[in-house]
């Protein structure tokens, strides 16, 4: 048993998390150093801002987590997303969860209500199809996303222009 344990890959989630954070940290430090080398002395304030922005973006990209989102796969189907209300044949949970996070991130590029609706519809549809068809469906959502983002923002801007600027009070 002990030998078998030794042959198994190291999948301790805590170690994985530490490794991932270390990789992100190295990327941030190297990025900051590059920025410091490239910019002039009057622009040193860019480095901390760059570090902060890269830290946030890399954390989101590396962990696939967004602030305020519930942890999935805990066995309690109360959240939203593929694993929350999916079918029993969800397939590899990691892959589905990753694709779901990409959809979440794309939805954040759209104006608030439109993005939420797009994501809710995708969630509703993807939870009803089999895992084998899900990949193609997600890819189709992602393919149409850039056009949708432009279309929705254009519509939002036009609506705001039509309504006029908001006045306080």
């Amino acid at each position, binding site marked *: 048993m002990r030998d078998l344990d030794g042959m198994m890959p190291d999948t301790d989630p805590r170690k994985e998390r530490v490794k991932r954070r270390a990789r992100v940290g190295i990327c941030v430090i190297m990025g900051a150093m590059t920025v410091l080398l490239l910019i002039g002395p009057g622009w040193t304030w860019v480095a901390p801002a760059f570090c902060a922005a890269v830290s946030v973006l890399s954390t989101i990209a590396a962990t696939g987590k967004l602030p305020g989102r519930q942890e999935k796969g805990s066995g309690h189907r*109360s959240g939203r997303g593929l694993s929350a209300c999916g079918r029993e044949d969800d397939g590899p949970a990691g892959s589905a969860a990753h694709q779901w996070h990409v959809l979440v991130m794309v939805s954040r590029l759209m104006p608030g209500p439109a993005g939420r609706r797009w994501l809710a519809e995708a969630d*509703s549809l993807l939870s009803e199809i089999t895992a084998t*068809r899900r990949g193609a469906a997600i890819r189709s959502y992602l393919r149409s996303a850039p056009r949708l983002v432009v279309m929705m923002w254009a519509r939002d801007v036009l609506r705001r222009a039509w309504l006029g600027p908001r006045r306080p009070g």
Partner: protein
Amino acid sequence: MALRLTLQVQLVLQALLRDPAREMYGLELSEETGLQPGTAYPILLRLEQEGWVTSRWEDIDPRAEKRPARRYYCLTASGAVQASAALPGARRPKGAALRRLAGEGGTA
């Protein structure tokens, strides 16, 4: 802006026109048209903007049903009239376009 009746738009309109009073949700529509859901969604959104289609969220308890609520789409009265009038005059799809569409993944 006038709605451009592309092949995909025609397919969605035809599916909705089969029974104009019937409400259809995204998966149903993509299965009937053979379009991927990501392709059908922007079309439905445009049709809704133009007032041809109306939509609503299904009123269910997702926990009880063990699935999220569906978004149902239905042709409006004016949309049904306009679609019926526009479809016969629309450009007929060519064989190549149909083959490409089939290759896109008829199964949603």
